[in-house]
């Protein structure tokens, strides 16, 4: 009887296979009507179940480096279509990463557990915990007490004590970064280029580096750190010249200076290790060198980022940038390209050159454009680059494979704490866990264990290695990138990964008309800046 039944079932299955073929893969597509909208991406097409094609409007030699960046992480198509629309995605990401989210205990921690169906090498421990503390001393105390395994951003004053502590590892961080003093040119008196030039000359940047930055930091000769190709072509920044600065300020109609504010967030960053001290130092220098009375205003981190990047701060602001991927476009295009309002109205003298240069793969061919762009930045002074900061992380000696990569957050799945739980402590709580719409480093770090991208960065360099895509290759013009996807990958919700997930995830960020184009703030900064704007955006 059983035999007959089994045979019958097998027969039914055979009939089903023959008479009702498996549903054919229906590939999704997101596309702009044409390339007139000014962005880089014309369309993204799921060509088959495991092939995605990115058709670009213009060449992008940095495509792979960008595609490896956390904001371009992949979540399930169905989840994007529901949670991306109702907003629940911002606190409950579903990815393919080595860890799945267990709980986000607001104000305390984010807890992850090992994903046992992970396609790659599984972590050596069960539970990963992200915690935060904005105090450098507080983080170090926790590390010394053994309540955390690794901390970010050791205070410069603690470098020596960490190095001498037999129970700790000192981990230098070589992430290229820049700290700058921003101004928004839509507010007076920063709408006057002479005022901005006066400020550029009136700040003794070397004094700031000497007194408030750790050894290894340097004065910024250009906006982009010189370790990146073409970063430091063109004229170096102005020398400190308070006399000339006062003359310029007088010419601009402010012989006695003016009243303004210095906004900042009190969050430790590699590019700005002691924000409150540097704010007071700048306040002092502006007063003594230029007669400018600046009130120091500390803001909540998320609000500060939102207000500054939206060009809504009416005074100076101290901000910086750590490299996300190893290409000059990550620094210059994000801050100065067309459509960027962070410093007020963008300057065509800068962005025209950047747009042209970003389509050129060859470094030498692109150099003249970056020379012009850097010189225009120097001439127009949208901001004053101050420092390229050195920073360091620290870990318990017992943490195996402790590291801090030059790009991205530590890939903690490769660490081995020698116990079931690894606790990682960073500076601040994530703003949200939907990183397509975040730029904040703490948020990106907290997304990384859960959500994976097509490619990944090597642990010791900015080179890319396969992740969800086994390969991404371009045509000769670098205008069509074809990514072959990894097969057999599962999401944390049990669904299978395919090309439609990639298209849906990218569409939520790049397509302004997509119902899931909501996110946390809706700004999707990295999609806008790295791909030169949203497709299908409303005319206004």
């Amino acid at each position: 009887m059983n035999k007959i039944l089994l045979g019958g079932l097998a027969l039914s299955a055979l009939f089903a296979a023959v008479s009702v073929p498996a549903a054919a893969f229906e590939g999704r597509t997101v596309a702009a009507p044409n390339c007139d909208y000014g962005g880089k991406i014309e369309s993204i097409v799921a060509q088959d179940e495991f092939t995605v094609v990115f058709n670009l409007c213009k060449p992008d030699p940095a495509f792979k480096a960008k595609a490896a960046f956390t904001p371009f992480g992949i979540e399930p198509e169905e989840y994007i279509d529901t949670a991306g629309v109702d907003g629940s995605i911002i606190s409950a990401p579903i990815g393919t990463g080595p860890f799945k989210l267990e709980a986000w205990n607001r104000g305390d921690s984010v807890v992850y557990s090992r994903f046992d169906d992970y396609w790659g090498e599984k972590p050596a421990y069960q539970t990963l915990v992200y915690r935060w503390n904005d105090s450098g001393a507080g983080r170090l105390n926790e590390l010394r007490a053994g309540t955390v395994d690794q901390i970010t951003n050791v205070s410069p004053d603690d470098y020596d004590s960490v190095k001498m502590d037999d129970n700790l590892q000192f981990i230098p961080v070589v992430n290229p970064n820049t700290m700058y003093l921003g101004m928004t040119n839509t507010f007076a008196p920063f709408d006057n280029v002479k005022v901005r030039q006066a400020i550029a000359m009136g700040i003794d940047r070397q004094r700031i580096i000497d007194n408030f930055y750790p050894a290894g930091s340097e004065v910024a000769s250009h906006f982009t750190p010189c370790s990146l190709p073409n970063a430091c072509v063109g004229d170096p920044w102005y020398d400190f010249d308070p006399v000339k600065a006062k003359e310029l300020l007088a010419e601009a109609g402010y012989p006695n200076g003016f009243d303004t504010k210095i906004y900042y967030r009190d969050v430790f960053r590699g590019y700005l290790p002691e924000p409150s001290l540097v704010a007071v130092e700048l306040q002092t220098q502006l007063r003594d060198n230029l007669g400018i009375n600046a009130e120091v205003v500390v803001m909540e981190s998320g609000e500060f980022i939102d207000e500054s990047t939206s060009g809504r701060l009416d005074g100076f602001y101290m901000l910086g940038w750590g490299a996300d991927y190893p290409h000059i476009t990550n620094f210059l295009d994000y801050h100065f390209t067309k459509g960027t309002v962070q410093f007020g109205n963008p300057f065509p003298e800068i962005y025209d050159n950047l747009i042209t240069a970003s389509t050129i793969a060859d470094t030498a061919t692109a150099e003249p454009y970056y020379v012009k762009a850097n010189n225009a930045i120097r001439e127009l002074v949208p901001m004053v680059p101050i420092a390229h900061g050195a920073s360091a992380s620290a870990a318990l000696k017992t943490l195996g494979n402790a590291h801090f990569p030059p790009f991205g957050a530590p890939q903690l799945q490769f660490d081995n704490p020698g116990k079931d739980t690894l606790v990682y402590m960073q500076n601040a709580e994530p703003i949200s866990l939907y990183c397509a719409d975040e730029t904040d480093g703490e948020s990106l770090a907290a997304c990384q264990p859960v959500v994976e991208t097509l490619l990944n960065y090597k642990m010791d360099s900015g080179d890319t290695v396969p992740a969800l895509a086994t390969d991404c290759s371009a045509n000769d013009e670098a205008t069509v990138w074809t990514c072959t996807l990894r097969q057999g990958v599962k999401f944390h919700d049990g669904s299978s990964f395919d090309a439609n997930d990639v298209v849906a995830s990218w569409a939520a960020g790049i397509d302004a008309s997509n119902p899931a184009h909501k996110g946390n703030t809706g700004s999707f900064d990295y999609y806008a800046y790295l791909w030169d704007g949203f497709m299908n955006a409303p005319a206004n």
Partner: protein
Amino acid sequence: MSALSRASAQYSEKIDTEGLLGDPKPMWRQAISRLLAIRSGQIGLVIILILLFIAAFADVISPYNPQQVLIGVEQVKKRDAPCVHFLGCDTAKPQHIMGIDGNVRDEYSRVLHGTRVSLTIGLTTVSAALLFGVFFGAVSGYFGGWIDMIIMRLMDVILGFPSLLLAIAIVAVLGPGIQNALLAISIVTLPQYARVTRASVLSVKELDFVAASKVMGASHRHILFFRVLPNAMTPIVVLATLGIATAILDAAGLSFLGLGAQPPMPEWGTMLGSERNQIFSAPHLVFFPGIAIMITVLGFNLLGDGLRDALDPRLNHS
């Protein structure tokens, strides 16, 4: 002026001249002499007098301008430890008895100037709270009825919130800054003065000399402000003295949170807050402002205790 009013005024002057209604001068003289005999009062008074001296002459006794950055001026670096030549510090190094702060300024000069800021905060907030609190409390207690009910329920509402939390909320709405912090502290402390004044006025207004004034036709304003209030001030004076200490603590707390005095003003709470993360690497930058707050608060508390004992008629001062 009517004949009755003239007679009333003459009677009042006669009473005042003879001190029958309790001429306050002899009473205060007695109180001061009693205060000077009380040990806690003596110590408190000495501390306050020293602080007043420092506040008045901070510019003279400070070795540096509290906002002067010493980069390029001396061979010092941020958060240098205290250097006292007398205690063995190399004489080739510049002397900074409380060390150097995070912005390379002399900590001692900043702590000294902080005295001026803190005393100003304490006296200003208490004065404002006294002015309005005593007025509302006196009117409330004297007239009673619906006036009393409205004023006291309003005070109850303010008292319903934890004072520092309410002050933080007020500053959060008005914006950080020393003036807004002063206003917030004045508002949250005002009900205490109103309540104490009301209670005191309620008891004094039933005394015979007040009834006598009423019989003689004195106006309510005259009775309240020239007869009742002077005789109801004893507990208010004690409360105000203790209140200065509380106000200084509250202001330091707000500044510690970044809601009060803003950089580069040398305010103790701000100094503490800006260096709180360096408690292990540069403890002197937390220790000295903390000690300054502690001594000041102690001084006003001791003086307040002494005044309370000196002005308490139930204690045998003989």
